[in-house]
């Protein structure tokens, strides 16, 4: 590849100067995925209860860049910059976090059906959020208020609890999954108990559980961004190591890898990104399974490709799902988790059939 292509004209195909290519992320795939995300995001910004008109939105963007006068009224500009754009950006960030974390979890657990909620992030976040809704109803739902904070702490706490419990039982991933199941069940039971203490908050609890981006502003974006950025860097650097984990601990160890170290770093990065996403958007299911699998089917199975393209694909997928969620019954909104489940559950079934006999 690269400089070798000039050599190939002098040698017959297969000559030694032509080096074999490892599966790697290609610039073409990144460009294609980024273009797709940009297209979906642009469409999403233009769609909404109030039609701003694409020419006028374009005029507003030009005005912002050049300091000229905008064709939009002040109210329309606020709809654009304070409601639509941050919502699309947040949907992209949350989607990227969930899909990238899902791909990372699948690599760590060597199981294509692992998702970022496997170790108790969802149950922990659910308990945290329910506690706030029950104990302090009406407390701020803003990005920096108690609800997202409690959800974040709950998610991180759930994963940490699973990790500690799993480690105490053994070193492998199987015990970790079992610990995740136990912790999730316990935290869900606790959450149900707390929610029964005040029945009138049930609707609010369920709305949060189903996930949504309805109350988004720039604060939420700023909450998620640092975690996602850090996780994205770690995950994109870990592709080769996750491919090695697929060999199993013994073979990976024979090649000089420390599988336990790779697992803890990757799980920490993915779990923090998931917790941040859950904190601002509730529980949005299936993104973490559907997107990595689409990438595997469409491009390649190496985590060097799956991780970065899942980040981009997750962004595109959730922006699209959120657009559907807020337009299909407009002016009413559906929880975006309902849309991803509608699209995701049948897909999940397909993946399950395809991986039949290969799930460990």
């Amino acid at each position: 590849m690269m400089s070798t292509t000039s050599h190939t004209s002098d040698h017959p195909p297969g000559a030694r100067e032509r080096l074999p290519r490892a599966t790697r992320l290609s610039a073409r795939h990144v460009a294609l995925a980024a273009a797709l995300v940009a297209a979906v995001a642009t469409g999403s910004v233009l769609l909404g209860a109030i039609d701003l008109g694409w020419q006028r939105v374009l005029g507003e963007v030009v005005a912002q860049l050049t300091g000229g006068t905008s064709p939009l009224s002040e109210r329309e500009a606020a709809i654009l910059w304070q409601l639509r754009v941050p919502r699309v950006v947040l949907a992209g960030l949350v989607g990227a976090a969930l899909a990238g974390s899902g791909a990372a979890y699948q690599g760590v657990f060597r199981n294509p059906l692992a998702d970022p909620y496997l170790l108790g992030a969802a149950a922990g976040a659910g308990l945290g959020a329910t506690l706030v809704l029950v104990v302090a109803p009406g407390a701020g739902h803003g990005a920096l208020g108690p609800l997202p904070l409690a959800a974040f702490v709950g998610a991180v706490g759930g994963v940490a609890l699973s990790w500690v419990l799993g480690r105490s039982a053994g070193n492998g991933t199987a015990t970790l999954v079992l610990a995740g199941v136990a912790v999730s069940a316990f935290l869900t039971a606790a959450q149900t108990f707390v929610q029964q203490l005040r029945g009138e908050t049930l609707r609010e609890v369920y709305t949060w559980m189903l996930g949504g981006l309805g109350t988004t502003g720039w604060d939420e974006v700023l909450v998620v961004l640092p975690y996602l950025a850090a996780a994205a860097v770690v995950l994109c650097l870990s592709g080769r190591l996750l491919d090695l984990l697929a060999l199993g601990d013994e073979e990976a160890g024979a090649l000089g890898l420390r599988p336990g170290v790779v697992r803890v770093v990757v799980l920490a990065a993915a779990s923090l990104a998931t917790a941040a996403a859950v904190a601002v958007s509730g529980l949005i299911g299936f993104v973490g399974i559907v997107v990595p699998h689409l990438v595997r089917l469409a491009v390649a199975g190496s985590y060097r490709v799956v991780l970065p393209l899942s980040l981009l694909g997750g962004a595109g997928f959730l922006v699209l799902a959120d657009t559907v969620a807020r337009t299909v019954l407009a002016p009413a909104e559906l929880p975006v988790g309902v849309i991803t489940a509608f699209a995701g559950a049948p897909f999940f079934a397909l993946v399950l059939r395809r991986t039949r006999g290969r799930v460990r």
Partner: protein
Amino acid sequence: MTVAADGSALELRGLSAGYRGRWVVRDVDVAVRRGAWVAVIGPNGAGKSTLLKAVAGLVDHTGEVLLHGEPLSRLGPRARARAVGYAPQTPELPEGLTVTDYVLFGRTPHLGPLARESRADLEIVADALDRLDLSALAHRPLRTLSGGERQRAVLGRALAQRADLLLLDEPTTGLDIGHAQALLDLVDHLRRADGTTVVSTLHDLTLAAQYADELVLVDRGRVVAAGPPADVLTAELLAARYAARVTILTTPDGAPVVAPVR
């Protein structure tokens, strides 16, 4: 043990291995000459694979494993993987990776944890593919390979480690006699060309006798016989250790052939 201790590439001294407190392999003393091929033989469950894994540092063990006189226990996992190449008996073949990706795994101990492979690494991979006659399959998905091609890819990965010592755990598993011979010919050619020391387990005693310089017979975790194939492969010893009824024939060029008799 008949192999001379001095000038040995690999030396095992009082090696016990397996699970702490329940050793599968006990008190093994073996020395392997530089560039030699030693085959570990023995009945099922004797501890052959565990012995190899102990040398690769993959199971608990006590005693000493010396490579060129240096204890391997002093090396970290990466340095150890640069010194010892290992091809497992039942390798895991991840979905979605190509033959090149897989052979490139052999370069892992030479790369930093976050490094990308360099042109030099790909040249080493190209060389391994070439020598194993896998170049035409370089970009084929791993899962689509035939049994013989898979075993060659696994060997290619171990070869790409560029280690002085190659551990091959049943490299002919699942291969018919022709493919088994082709693979062992390849190993023999490579070790002679590179001066690599080879320790392999082999369940086919006749093939072991024809390819290895020395045999080490292991039974219930202990070395019960070692030396040139003709000395180890006796009908009495095999009857005692394998509970097998065999007669030992000889090929025209003097190699022993283990023939089962009813």
